[in-house]
């Protein structure tokens, strides 16, 4: 579970004022502002964006074929009750009401459990887990067909104390992914310029995710939807990553091929304690350890991601995951051992993603679980 630490203390920023001519003005200083802006250009006052960033995703017709057609994502089919599948519990027939006609077990919705497999080397699995009533996690991934190309991995973990977080987190993850797919650096450039451009794209993706969350928050909602954000963009041997909240990015080289690393840095009370010198084990299990200090959503005080990059240099896995997984294996070395133990045949990312999710469920599945993987 992800809790806000200071949610109630953070004032909700005011919405821009719509003028009779349709233009928007800053409620603080009266300057003209755009719908998607979170801050006034003139006075710097905070605003609640009322629209997503414009035209960051080029439409299919206008985009160069080599950018958009090389990236594949799964067809969108969320939120539909699957009635053709037999009951997962007893194999019985699922009724039109979404429950098994024999044992009464609720048929999982697509939202409760889904996988993504855009290319042979990239996959994701997102699952309700055991104890939570619904799946407020979301993944969104995309990849070039050929291993060694470009992959985009995004995980958003909805804050379960807020309303409609399941809808908001999925919208955020998909919006962020689409921004990262569209913002593909063109030309070769230097490694440094590629990192800078991709880091910039991750910040844009977070902003777009933030706008998506707000778009999916009822205007009158007293408990605004919110979620975390973690993204990794793999390009050949380079990974650029960023996060808001406590969803994580790991580099897990194959056993013996290098040092595993937790790349992202949580925005959480636990992380703040670790920074103060408290041992990780103690910090992650202390009171409010899961309270996050940054998130996406209408009441977010700051959704700028902390970004970084790493040149990989050995075979392994780039992993983006929610706390539903790392609750049971926080240290990068623990995940490395786990991956070695699960030993997916043919290094299949989908097999490994599902195996990691099943493993976390076997550990108790106390939270929703998201795993996104790219094989490098």
């Amino acid at each position, binding site marked *: 579970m992800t809790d806000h630490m200071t949610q109630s203390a953070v004032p909700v920023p005011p919405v821009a004022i719509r003028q009779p001519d349709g233009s928007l003005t800053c409620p603080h200083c009266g300057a003209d502002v755009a719908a998607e802006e979170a801050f006034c250009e003139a006075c710097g006052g905070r605003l609640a964006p009322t629209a997503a960033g414009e035209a960051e995703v080029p439409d299919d017709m206008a985009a160069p074929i080599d950018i958009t057609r090389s990236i594949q994502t799964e067809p969108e089919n969320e939120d539909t009750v699957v009635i053709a599948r037999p009951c997962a519990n*007893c194999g*019985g027939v699922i*009724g039109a*009401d979404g*429950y*098994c*006609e*024999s*044992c*009464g*077990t*609720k048929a999982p919705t697509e939202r409760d459990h889904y996988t993504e497999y855009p290319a042979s080397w990239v996959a994701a699995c997102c699952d309700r*887990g*055991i*104890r*939570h*009533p619904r799946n407020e996690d979301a993944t969104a991934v995309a990849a070039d067909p050929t291993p060694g190309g470009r992959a985009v991995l995004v995980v958003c973990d909805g804050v379960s104390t807020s309303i409609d977080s399941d809808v908001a987190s999925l919208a955020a993850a998909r919006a962020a992914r689409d921004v990262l797919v569209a913002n593909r650096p063109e030309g070769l450039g230097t490694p440094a310029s590629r990192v800078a451009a991709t880091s910039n794209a991750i910040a844009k993706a977070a902003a777009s995710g933030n706008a998506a969350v707000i778009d999916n928050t009822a205007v009158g909602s007293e408990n605004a939807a919110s979620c975390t954000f973690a993204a990794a963009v793999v390009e050949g041997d380079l990974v650029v990553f960023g996060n808001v909240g406590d969803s994580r990015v790991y580099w897990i080289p194959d056993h013996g091929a290098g040092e595993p690393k937790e790349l992202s840095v949580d925005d959480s009370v636990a992380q703040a304690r670790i920074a103060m010198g408290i041992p990780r084990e103690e910090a992650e299990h202390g009171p409010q350890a899961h309270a996050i200090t940054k998130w996406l959503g209408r009441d977010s005080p700051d959704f700028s991601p902390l970004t970084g990059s790493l040149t990989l240099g050995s075979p392994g896995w780039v992993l983006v995951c929610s706390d539903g997984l790392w609750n049971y294996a926080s240290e990068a070395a623990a995940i490395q051992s786990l991956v070695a133990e699960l030993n997916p045949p043919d290094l299949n990312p989908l097999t490994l993603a599902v195996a990691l999710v099943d493993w976390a469920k076997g550990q108790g*599945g106390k939270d929703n679980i998201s795993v996104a993987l790219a094989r490098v």
Partner: protein
Amino acid sequence: MAEFTAEVYQNEFLPEGGTDVNAIVTMTCSGAGSAGQTGSGDAGEIIIVDTSGSMGRTKLEAAKVAASAAVDQILDGTWFAVVAGTHQAYLAFPLVRAGRGMVLMDSSARQAAHQAISQFRSDGGTAMGTWLTLAGRLFDSVPGLVQRHAILLTDGENHNETPEQLTNAIMGVTGKFQCDCRGVGVDWQVAEVRRIAQALLGSVDIIPEPDQMSQVFAELMQQSMSRGVADAQLRVWAPQGAQVLFVRQVSPTVEDLTSRRVEVNPLTGGYPTGSWGDESRDYHVSVRLAAKAIGQEQLAGRVQLAVADQVVAQGLVKAKWSDDEGLTTRINPEVAHYTGQTELAQAIQDGLAAKAAGDEETATKKLGRAVQLAAETGNEEATTRLRKVVDIDDSETGTVRLKRAVEKADEMALDTASTKTTRIRG
């Protein structure tokens, strides 16, 4: 065209290891139309009047007026008959000896029926089983009758039959027709007549004074004529391995349906509900499940209403295991209310039975509990009736004293009305 809706009231959250799910399901019918007029088949009505010697002149004359008033309420095109009952049963109208024992109502049949009713003579004993058996045969003599209803009037005990004979007669006609039963005066046995009414999906009540009969009969017939849905079956599906602990109608009256289950399929039981007008009825369903892990959700029951084998409304009863005590300890007000009302009905009946048997201690205890429950569940009608039988010292603790002088009619009214429940919502 009749339309049905189902609403479910329950706390679906169960604690770790929790197994029992309780829900109140409200079934509502609208647009029912009139009996026999909706194109689904014909309706039949039989008026059964006690003409035993004990009726005497006053009650018999009142009964004639009442039977005629009921005849006046039967819609044209409805099949009907009038039975006069003593220690034997007589077909008073139509005047036939063979073939169809009922006729279609029209103005001349109505007039002829009035004429036949005016010939009633008070004579002989009482054998209600024979009356019911004749009514069953009369209904059977008309093919294609989909809705069958009778009104039975008696004034005395069933002297000329053993309880077993009456039981057999009731069993012989159960499912063949519905029967609303009324007792006039105070010389009849509530328990005996209730047995008939419950088995035949009807009501039972006392008519204390003969001059009230005519209005009661007219209203009963009007109500029956407004039931355009001939027959509906309550269905309860429970998952494989689950146990249906009970199925009760809890409003407008308490009727335990559990033992009336017929198998629809191995997981679904059917329970008769008779005909429906524009009305709501509440059912209390209790299901025991195997406990599941925290966070799991499953269906505990599908509660349906079926008309002519078609499911016309369905309510889902759910179970969700949670470790949130704030959710699992919540008491659903509808379930609590009707659980109290069911206990109230039982406490009144047990208390009156103990009183009749001379066990004043049990009677005081049970009726005291009834007073307490009536107060808790806001059943003011029950409280008013109880006040006529006991002096209430403290309704909160259920402290009462049995009244020394009680009108027999008041005691019988308390008994017949014991199963009537109040709603907690509008």
